């Protein structure tokens, strides 16, 4: 028996050694690793699912090799907690030696990680978080999603021009919500509108009922709403329950509230909601039609605006690597990203060379029934919109 045990352990040892040997070449210089940190669980899991799905779709369509380097995607779940995001980023930089950090579902998660990007000189692709100040926090941050001022001001102008005189703002109480509220108020009042009340709802476990009561009491022409992706359906449900739709109060806002992922389940209360945003699954281009179809086939859900942030984030990474011919130096990669321009499912997209922000078309859309589904149907386009707060500086 002793001999057999010895034999067994020898076999195990040699197998282990072989395995270790086999794993070594994988760690060689030919692999470029992308650390994708997303909320895959918790209240913002839909954002993670969308971006992860889009990133994998991009890799499936464009191959896993760029400029002779093999692309490896490492997905991590931060459950929406900033200190977890930061720790995961730290591990990805130190242990996995990632060339890119990507993802970042919410503003606090991106802000917490920004110092690490600077310290580690790692390009950090913000695919989702939308507060304007994020890109100021590190010269290594490049954004492929959108900023709230960018998506907010078109709807403020549209509202003022379309017979909405009095509005109440209702936003989630964190940085992007404050961004949206500030921009809406300044543009709307400058155009002659009046903001009757500014309401801020807690980000965690939001209960809109008491706030909606106050909206109703103020009886405005419209309520301007910003809630993060995924929260829109709770808002719509409580909006209908309180009978605000019957009181003739319109819903306007940046397109986060009529998120394509959940829009279809909101029901008829969502019909006629007018929003401004950079992406709709109903965007009438051949590229988008193909994108929506492929995305649905792969992930079984309808892509929303978060997904294009992820899809274009991967496109940006691929293009930057191609431009540096596979050089993984962080500074060179960020330099290569500046000013890049390409056609995205959302329309033309450029990375602003000065602010590292996306420059893109904004669409005014209205929720309508297309076939059996609710969709954000675009009816007005503003071309090449920049973040207005940055341009003002």
């Amino acid at each position, binding site marked *: *028996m002793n001999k057999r045990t010895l034999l067994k352990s020898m076999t195990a040892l040699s197998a282990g050694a072989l395995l270790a040997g086999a794993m070594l070449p994988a760690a060689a210089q030919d692999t470029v690793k992308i650390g994708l940190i*997303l909320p*895959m*669980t918790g209240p913002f*899991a839909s954002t*993670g*699912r969308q971006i992860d799905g889009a990133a994998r779709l991009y890799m499936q369509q464009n191959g896993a090799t760029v400029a002779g380097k093999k692309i490896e995607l490492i*997905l*991590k*779940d931060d459950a929406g*907690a*900033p*200190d*977890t995001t*930061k*720790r995961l980023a*730290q*591990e990805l*930089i*130190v*242990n996995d030696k990632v060339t890119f950090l990507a993802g970042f579902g919410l*503003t*606090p998660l991106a*802000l*917490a990680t920004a*110092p*690490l990007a600077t*310290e*580690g000189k790692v390009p950090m692709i913000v695919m989702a978080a939308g*507060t304007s100040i994020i890109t100021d*926090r590190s010269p290594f941050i490049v954004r492929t999603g959108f900023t709230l001022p960018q998506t907010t001001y078109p709807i403020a102008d549209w509202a003022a021009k379309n017979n909405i005189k009095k509005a109440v703002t209702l936003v989630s*109480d*964190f*940085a992007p919500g404050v961004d949206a509220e500030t921009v809406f108020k300044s543009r709307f009042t400058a155009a002659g509108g009046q903001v009757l009340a500014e309401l801020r709802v*807690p*980000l*965690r476990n939001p209960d809109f009922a008491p706030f909606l009561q106050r909206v109703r009491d103020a009886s405005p022409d419209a309520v301007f709403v910003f809630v993060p992706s995924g929260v829109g359906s709770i808002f719509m449900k409580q909006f209908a329950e309180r009978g605000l739709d019957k009181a003739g109060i319109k819903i306007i806002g940046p397109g986060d509230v009529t998120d394509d992922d959940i829009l279809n389940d909101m029901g008829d209360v969502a019909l006629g909601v007018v929003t401004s945003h950079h992406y709709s699954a109903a965007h009438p281009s051949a590229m988008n039609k193909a994108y929506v179809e492929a995305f649905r086939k792969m992930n079984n859900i309808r892509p929303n605006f978060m997904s294009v942030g992820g899809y274009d984030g991967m496109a940006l990474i691929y293009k930057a690597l191609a431009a540096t011919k596979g050089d993984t130096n962080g500074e060179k990669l960020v330099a290569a990203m500046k000013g890049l321009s390409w056609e995205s499912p959302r329309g033309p997209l450029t990375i602003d060379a000065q602010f590292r922000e996306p420059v893109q078309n904004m669409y005014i859309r209205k929720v309508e029934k297309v076939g059996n589904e609710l969709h954000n149907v675009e009816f007005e386009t503003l071309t090449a919109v920049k973040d207005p707060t940055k341009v003002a500086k």
Partner: protein
Amino acid sequence: MSGPQPAFPLARVSRRAEWIILAVALVSVLLLPRYYPVMNQMAIIALFAVSLDLILGYAGIVSLGHAAFFGLGVYTAALFAKHVHGDPFLGLVIAAIAAALLGLATAVLILRGTDLTRLMVTLGVALILLELANKLDWLTGGADGLQGVVMAPVLGLFTFDMAGRTAYLYSLTILLLMLFLARRLVASPFGMSLQAIRDNRLRAEAIGIPVNARLAAIYTISAGVAGIAGGLLAQTTSFASLDALDFQRSADILLVLVIGGTGYLFGGVIGAVIFTAMHHWLSAVTPQYWQFWIGLMLVVIVLAGRERLVRAILSPFTWLLGLARGRSGPAK
């Protein structure tokens, strides 16, 4: 160490446990540089669990809001470093004092009532603090988190590095120090009187133990230790966010004690290591469904009984030990 002990095999080796933990910790420093950030997390959670064990395992006070003290420690240490001074040890002392003061102030609430009311009251305190931190966004940064915390080097020598080595060694040192102090505390006459209160409050009162004063004292101490754990988190991540005060945090720490066992202090450490390692490993393997596996594991632990599991896990090792001593293993 005498007094009532839970019938747990590891409790018997508790005298040697300090040395075992010290040895394991030293080996981990040398062998696992990859895992410094995770091990830092483990050390912090372990200290937090030890603080809860002080009241739960030794004084029988249940709490669903221990994150209140942890979170207060996080914010105090972060704000102190940001606005006053970046020295880590000084920050920890301030965090401990702030949390202990809150513990003293809220001790009144846990002196009365049954376990159920205590659960509710402690939960309430944590919720109030969470809402305060959310609303005072000029001070705490609200839901965006507190940015711009810059820490000075530990002892003026060791800067907090990207690999997390300093952070881990720093947290580990504090954990071992606090464990040592906590062991002395629970073995003292004061600790004995707490266990008497835990086992039979009426009888303890009858033999002249000042029950309320003792409970208030241990609650204050426990709050202070939780504050130190929070301070460590703020300092080693140079960041503070609302999650520190979240209900999830209080619930997680109870889970850690469920896994590791209460009433012998090392349960918190063992639980923290298992919980964090499982969490880390599972969320890497399956980022979407790891919570399911954690849940399943908890159900198994509770249903099968911790002791039986430990024996089952240890049995191959005892067999190996037997082999090493030249004795034959169990017959096949």
